[in-house]
């Protein structure tokens, strides 16, 4: 090791003398992916699946004193992916890095990170060839210097279920000569995640995929994912706010997701509350980091417009927090709901179960409140209570209870009404029973 460095230093000095006499500048890649500068591969390729591996190329460069601006640029125009001597794919992605040369030494080390994406076709092709490893070669150079080739080995794993891995077919032809004993195949290292994402759908918690809302209106989003197998999901909720979407959108992280998917085939992920305090365009996206292969994040958008002082124009679905559906009405039963902003009063309404149309599941569950017509029910409430907008819950008054019969079933819901008299929120119907 030391001998090698001494040799390199002597060589540099000699070349420096030669080049200074000739008036030129000498630069060279002295080492690349050798024992002193170990190149590293992180991750494995899986046969038949798109895979991403991280590679760190390491080496050292040297130059004569006075090389341009004390810095060298290490370049690589591309590389090749091989199985044995067979080329599977040519990689044309260039890599480049500026290496600062210290004034005290003619050489400097460098490392370049590469994220190599292997298509499912390439890994399948390699798998069909019976390969357990892929060779990845890249040529690096510095201006005015020689070209040097680096090489790393990528482990290729068999695909997990459900892709069947063909059994090796025995060769019927007799082996004429004893073949050299192959080197034992190294045990594959564990991969990052075997989760196979099949579908994703991103929408707001109101079910829509675009929204126009008032400043301060609450909003969240949901990601519904269908997947196979089990393993780690790493992802991130990101948002670009109006302070950047008038120009170049800058996505800031809202929440990191690191979660094990346990094999249930589907999951619903909830975003953190989304801001709506500034007017303008917001872009919300869900970025999947692991498992690899989903390059394009899902993006939906919403716009905040108008003034917080004016009436919201859409009827929002309100969530009831209690009592539970079909609960018993007691003397202490308290009706609670998720509060909305800009509400003048809430109207708690109770309907008799026998009222026409109310028993229909279509009415009680398909109320999506896109319009006043859907909020309107075909019957009038049998009783109810008006509550100031500052409250998000109430118990029934004696006057309200006087309207209710014993041992009967009622449906209840809440309407939110703003100062202008418009309905701005409504809940679905829940059943509640009175005591015998």
């Amino acid at each position, binding site marked *: 090791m030391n001998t090698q460095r001494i040799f390199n230093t002597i060589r540099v000095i000699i070349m420096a003398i030669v080049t200074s006499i000739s008036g030129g500048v000498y630069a060279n890649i002295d080492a690349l992916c050798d024992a002193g500068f170990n190149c590293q591969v*992180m991750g494995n390729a899986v046969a038949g699946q798109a895979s991403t591996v*991280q590679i*760190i190329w390491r080496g050292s460069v040297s130059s004569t004193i006075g090389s341009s601006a004390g810095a060298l640029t290490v370049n690589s125009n591309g590389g090749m992916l091989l199985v044995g001597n067979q080329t599977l794919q040519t990689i044309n992605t260039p890599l480049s890095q500026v290496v600062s040369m210290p004034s005290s030494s003619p050489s400097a080390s460098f490392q370049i990170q590469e994220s190599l994406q292997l298509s499912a076709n390439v890994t399948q092709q390699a798998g069909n060839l019976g390969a357990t490893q892929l060779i990845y070669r890249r040529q690096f150079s510095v201006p005015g210097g020689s070209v040097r080739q680096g090489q790393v080995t990528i482990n290729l*794993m068999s695909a997990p*279920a*459900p892709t069947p891995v063909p*059994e090796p077919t025995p060769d019927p032809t007799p082996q004429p000569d004893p073949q050299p004993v192959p080197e034992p195949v190294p045990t594959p290292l*564990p*991969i990052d995640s075997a989760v196979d994402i099949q*579908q*994703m759908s*991103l929408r707001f918690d109101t079910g*829509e*995929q*675009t929204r126009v809302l*008032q400043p301060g209106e609450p909003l969240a989003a949901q990601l519904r994912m*269908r997947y196979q197998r089990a*393993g*780690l999901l790493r992802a991130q909720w990101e948002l670009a706010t*109006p*302070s950047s979407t*008038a*120009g170049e959108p*800058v996505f800031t992280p809202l929440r990191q997701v*690191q979660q094990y998917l346990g*094999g*249930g085939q*589907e999951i619903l992920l909830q975003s953190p509350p989304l801001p709506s*305090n*500034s*007017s303008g*365009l917001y872009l919300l996206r869900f970025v999947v980091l*692991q498992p690899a292969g989903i390059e394009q994040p899902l993006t*939906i*958008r919403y*716009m905040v417009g*108008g*003034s917080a*002082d*004016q009436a919201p*124009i859409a009827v929002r679905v309100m969530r009831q927090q209690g*009592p*539970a559906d*079909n*609960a018993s009405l007691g003397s202490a039963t308290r009706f609670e709901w998720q509060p909305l902003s800009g509400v003048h009063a809430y109207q708690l309404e109770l309907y008799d179960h*026998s009222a*026409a149309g109310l028993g229909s*599941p*279509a009415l009680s569950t398909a109320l999506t409140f896109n*319009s006043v017509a859907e909020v309107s029910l075909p019957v*009038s*409430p049998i009783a109810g209570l*008006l*509550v100031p907008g500052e409250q998000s819950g109430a118990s029934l008054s*004696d*006057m309200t209870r006087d309207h209710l019969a014993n041992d*009967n*079933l009622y449906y209840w819901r809440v309407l939110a009404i703003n100062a202008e*008299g*418009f309905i701005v929120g409504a809940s679905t119907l829940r059943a509640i029973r009175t005591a015998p």
Partner: protein
Amino acid sequence: MKKALLNALILAQPFVVSLGFAADDLATLEISLAEPQAREAYLPQEPLRLQLPDQIPAELLLQLSVELNSIDVTALVQYDDGALLFTPVRPLPSGRHELRVVGYGDDGSVHEVGYWLFNVRTPGFFQDSSLTGNVDLSASQRLAESSDYSTDRATSSQGSGSFQGASTTDFAQLSGRMDILYADNSEYSASGKALDLGTFLATAQGETFGANVGHHAVASNDLLFDGYEKRGVSINSQWQPMNTQLTLFGMSAQDRVGANNALGLNDRNNQYQGGVMQTRLWHSASHEGHLTAGFISGRRGDTGYGNWQQQTPVTEGSGWNMALDTHWFSRQLRMRLERAETDTRLLEGDADKDADSAYSALVMATPTLAEGNLSLGAEVKQVGLAYQSLANPFLPADRHSKRLFSQYATGNWIVNASLGSEHNNTDNDPARSLTKLRQARADITYSNFYSNNDAEIERWRALLGSPSVNLAVERNEFRDARTAEGFARQDMLSESVSLSAAFAASRWSWSVGSSYQTFDDFTDLQSDSRIHSVFANANFPLGSRITLQPGWERQRMHNRDYDAVSYNTLLSLTSSVVILPERLKGELSFISSDNRALNDPFYLQDNRNQYLTAELLWHAKKPKPNRFGLDVSLSLSNQDYRDRLFGENNNDNYQVFLTLRTTLPIQFSGVAQ
């Protein structure tokens, strides 16, 4: 609100407050309803004035309750110069209305003090009409930017519009809503065009017939339908004597935005047609039964905007379902059965039709208890390998699942617990692996939002806020019962425990939480790892003009196979300052994301990303209904990325904008005020 009423009364008539009065006073109390301004009828939002007798004791007044159309409106009744005043919170529809005042004596006696029937008149053919909306348009000028953000576009414009209207005719109730989004840079639009048509719906509903055009759901979530809104057209008919409703529809099979194919019915490869019939078979206070049947036929390809899927082949076919939902024994027992079948084929390639079925059975009991509410349930569901509903693309196929679940709520406590098991390979095909999942979940929540008589609890509540604390545990075992030849074996276990606490007061709130997750792959295909997460955030005012929202979360992941540890930290601070009330305000937001994974085998990284955004907003002219408003804002965004491994990735960019925004709120109530 009654306290407020009492205070108002004491201020107005301090001399009338006396501590002694007879309950019989309620019976002799005389209150009169003031005449309407228009003499013959009240206007829809005209205040109702109940004139009180002179010298009424405050205590007596507090025992009165006011009811309008069976709704107790006492909480919003005001005392005004010797009268009780109530202004309807919603415009009253034309017709006759009922007003009642009732007194409740200390001895439990109830006296109806007054009862009136009065008329409300709304002129015109379109009664109770309303139109609300908002149009918002902004123009931004780029004042400065770093080189990475330099662009030819020095100016940009954006806007949005949202409209909602409703009207009642003698024949039907009409309503509609529509969202419009505009961005002159079409890269940021949803459809690739500057002007996007967002969600919209027009509805006409009469006594017997109704129609919907736009985004709506034609059925709730079941085996055939996903319950999401889609673009389309539907008509419905109700036969009250038969308690039956029939809906016929043509719907887009994908999520769509934009003005193209606005009805969602132009793309032959992405639409389905069909019908849903819902009927109530029997109904009483004790039991009830509903039958629902649906049928669809069409094609589905790409799932559309906001969706991603691995493969998007066009599938065509049909499907039907039938569900019987019943309640028994004073509705303490619910039983639901559903059966569905689909018959689909790929439009290209494999032309063979593939038919399969799905079913579900649910039993749920909610017995009446002396204290608290209990619900117990069991469900069995199977979806065949080739089952594929065009209207429910996210339903996982080839899955047989069973689950038991329960919830018990009493006082401030709610406990949930569930056990589930499922397996794939519903055909028991020996050429495919049979993988089983066992799942157990439980959580307990304590919340205490309302004051009680316990001084100790009240002291803690005043100090910390009203608490809501949740503890949850979960365990998933996922392993092959039989591994088919040529397939990789699966044998995994994941477990998690999380604890979170949220505290809320009237003006501030804060929360903290922590979770620990473990994952073990006993086949060594994947790395075994552990994730520990913690978070804390708050929202509180500093004085009357400043609000702060700090937040922090940190995740530590230990990859046991590689003995590698990675950290992700997210720190945020958002503040808003009211500089001049209703005129000038400022917002400042700072986010720092720090990712350190120096020996992570898959994601080597060591970086820090800091974001700073700021906005100074001047309300030059406040918008009013049907009058423009004008805002001027100066905004800055800055991103500073530092890669501690690869310095060439570092960047520090900023952009500054001056924005003019005009807003026009539209409000039309359609009735004479």
